[in-house]
């Protein structure tokens, strides 16, 4: 227990020191975590003494990658994924096949056994989903041309893991070291005949799709009704962990399964709530993961075999970069986009650690090959983020200076609306309908799971979640929005929301529903400009209709109503200054009401409004008559 606490403190402290520093230097968080890992690893400060520990943490935190793909899936609706199928298939597949083939060929040239070369080739073809996607997200390039291409390649690589793991056992040359362990890696269905394995793989995917479509929604609805936030978070975790388990059972990549589930849930009302609940877990796990990678870099091995390790690392980075550059060129990426794409994906990925271990267990590799490859992989994962920094800071600015590139417009993966509407009860939904009728789409949040489901059925795109939470607003796209509307029926929440917006999102214009004039006062004092008292317009409209029924002319009543409302609004602005002093407030408001009434009743008594002499000939008649009288 002590050891755990000490370790936790070490990791967290290293991260706190290195990551903000790295970000300040413009290097991105990934590199910061990696450096933190190296720092506390066995070769520098030596806080973490044995490598095995780092490896263990790495395996445990690989789960962060699974979560990340689940979250990415959440942002990608099925129809958008379908649009990307060409890209994934063509670009991704050619990258995996060409890279594997070339590495394999080079291995043969150096007279490495073909089985070993093939295993290395297949492992090296993969890139690091964790590093690449994290960096892209940080730089906000997920929707850019290179981001989409990178994503396509990474997705294909995740799919490629399945055949690679299936292929490795066929390459056994020596005696498997631990055959029982090896089969564990491969899931429980190995003992089944081939057709049954295939069947169970499809069965598992089918289960994920069915659960995503029909199972998770009711589960989340049930949990959300309990209004216990931690329970909702737990359910979100259950979904991801459960799918991972199922996928591992049939030997599929858990990341891929999680991604699939994410895509299916992208259309669900719980999308933003899931995103904001899982985001911190993902971040922590990935951070730990990168640190673990850093701490496993075997520097003594690198120094002892410096030429081999470094030339291998450089070789693989250059090779992958060149292949990716050619692919990027064929997809008409601009030079700077292409460089980001190619260098970004040029490292060997975390999944290779798994294949190395697997190949070692199967007896394809011996210990020294495996160690060397591990060092190469970890080193490449550290070097590419550094290269990216150089690229972003030095090379790309230079390229962009020489020829300005007009970026091709890509259809975006995420939809972000200018308007965020919080609260979708009777008030909010009327507003939402009006907006939609006029072609304005708003991102709508509501915290009543039943209502959300019901409105979804009626065709409204409502998301579940408490709109007064900053993280939820963030995942609902508050940074891209310009107006936030609170149609919440509880002004306390609205006030919380206004405070939150003032602090975190000052760029937003807020429009707030207020219950009555006392709530309006409070909002006015907070500096809210757009306040809508819910009863004002309805009661005046009712009054209008009443006056009409009593025989008033409709147009006159309409104008009087408008005047009354204007008076009321301006009176509010005066009265807010006196609201804390009860006596003064009462006398002031009595004065206001009297003024208002006298003005209005005066108009009625005189049977015309002060406003429009022209339509009343009284004054003209008077003048004309007085002129004419002397003449008579």
């Amino acid at each position, binding site marked *: 227990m002590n050891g755990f606490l000490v370790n936790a403190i070490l990791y967290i402290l290293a991260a706190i020191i290195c990551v903000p520093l790295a970000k300040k230097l413009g290097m991105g968080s990934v590199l910061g975590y990696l450096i933190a890992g190296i720092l506390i690893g066995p070769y520098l400060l030596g806080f973490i003494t044995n490598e095995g520990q780092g490896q263990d943490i790495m395996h445990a935190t690989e789960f962060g990658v699974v979560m990340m793909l689940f979250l990415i899936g959440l942002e990608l609706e099925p129809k958008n994924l379908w649009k990307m199928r060409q890209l994934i298939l063509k670009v991704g597949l050619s990258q995996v096949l060409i890279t594997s083939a070339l590495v394999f060929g080079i291995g043969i040239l150096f007279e490495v056994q073909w089985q070993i070369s093939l295993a290395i080739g297949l492992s090296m073809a993969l890139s690091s989903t964790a590093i690449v996607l994290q960096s892209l997200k940080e730089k906000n390039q997920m929707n850019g041309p290179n981001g989409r291409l990178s994503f396509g390649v990474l997705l294909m690589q995740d799919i490629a893991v399945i055949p690679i793991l299936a292929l490795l056992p066929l390459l056994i040359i020596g005696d498997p070291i631990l055959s029982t362990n090896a089969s564990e890696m491969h899931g429980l269905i190995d003992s089944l005949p081939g057709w049954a394995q295939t069947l169970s793989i499809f069965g598992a995917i089918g289960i994920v799709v069915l659960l995503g479509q029909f199972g998770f929604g009711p589960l989340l609805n049930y949990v959300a009704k309990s209004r216990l936030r931690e329970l909702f978070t737990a359910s979100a975790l259950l979904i991801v962990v459960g799918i991972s388990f199922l996928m591992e059972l049939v030997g599929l990549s858990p990341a891929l399964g999680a991604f699939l589930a994410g895509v299916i849930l992208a259309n669900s009302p719980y999308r933003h709530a899931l995103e904001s609940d899982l985001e911190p877990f993902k971040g922590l796990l990935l951070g730990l993961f990168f640190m673990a990678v850093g701490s496993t870099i075997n520097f003594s091995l690198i120094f002892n075999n410096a030429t081999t390790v470094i030339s291998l690392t450089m070789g693989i980075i250059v090779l992958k970069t060149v292949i990716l550059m050619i692919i990027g060129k064929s997809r008409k990426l601009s030079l700077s986009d292409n460089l980001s794409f190619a260098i970004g994906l040029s490292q060997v990925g975390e999944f290779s650690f798994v294949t190395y271990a697997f190949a070692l267990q199967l007896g394809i590799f011996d210990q020294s090959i495996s160690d060397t490859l591990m060092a190469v992989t970890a080193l490449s994962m550290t070097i590419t983020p550094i290269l990216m920094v150089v690229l972003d800071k030095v090379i790309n600015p230079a390229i962009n200076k020489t020829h300005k590139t007009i970026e091709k417009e890509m259809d975006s993966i995420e939809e972000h609306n200018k308007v965020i509407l919080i609260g979708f009860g009777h008030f909010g939904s009327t507003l939402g309908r009006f907006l939609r009728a006029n072609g304005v789409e708003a991102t709508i949040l509501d915290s009543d799971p039943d209502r959300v489901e019901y409105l979804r059925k009626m065709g409204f795109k409502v998301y579940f979640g408490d709109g007064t939470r900053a993280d939820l607003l963030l995942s609902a796209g508050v940074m891209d929005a310009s107006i936030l509307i609170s149609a919440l029926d509880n002004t306390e929440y609205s006030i919380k929301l206004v405070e939150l917006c003032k602090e975190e999102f000052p760029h937003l214009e807020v429009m707030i529903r207020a219950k009555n004039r006392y709530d309006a006062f409070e909002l006015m004092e907070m500096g809210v400009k757009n306040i809508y008292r819910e009863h004002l317009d309805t009661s005046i409209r009712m009054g209008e209709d009443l006056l009409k029924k009593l025989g008033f002319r409709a147009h006159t009543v309409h104008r009087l109503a408008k005047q009354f409302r204007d008076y009321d609004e301006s009176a509010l602005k005066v009265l807010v200054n006196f609201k804390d002093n009860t006596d003064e407030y009462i006398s002031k408001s009595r004065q206001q009401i009297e003024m208002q009434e006298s003005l209005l009743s005066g108009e009625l008594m005189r049977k015309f409004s002060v*406003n429009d*002499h*022209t*339509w009343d000939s009284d*004054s003209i008649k008077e*003048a004309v008559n007085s002129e004419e009288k002397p003449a008579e």
Partner: protein
Amino acid sequence: MRKVLVLFAHPKFEHSEANQALIQAISGIENIEIRDLYELYPDFNISIQAEQEALFEAEIVIWHHPIYWYSCPPLMKQWIDLVLEFGWAYGPGGIYLKGKYIANAITSGGSQEAYQYDGRNNYKIEDFLRPFEQTARLCNMTYLPPFQVAGTHKISAFDLKKKAESYRKFLLELRDAADLSHFKNL
């Protein structure tokens, strides 16, 4: 430099290319104030006070509007009805507009040829604008000949640009010219 007040009334400005071009050409110029009436008074509740204050400060007034059924859009008529009050704009004590200049700036779908005595509309545009002319006269203002963009359904982008430019020049001259008497006989 005189102060120019453009009273602009178009119920669907966002769909009118001609008026967008015209308004754009005269926007942001010193001493040319544009009051977009349909934007200010969507419910026809014109603030008489605000309008009279704006009128009082200006020396040149432009009624800028499209021609609908040989007249102006209803809010412009409402404006005339309400703002030009008896005892303020005309009649006893109605001296506040005296000596100011006023003109119509109009866009019409019908062509110049249609607005002739032998044309489809049987009368010249000046004839249709008589009520405005007489309104001005009653208020002791000098009524100037209208600025017109005719045939807006068919106008080319190039011609429209030229027209917008000449509208700008027209207003600048009203703003700056030492003597306005020659305008009366245009």
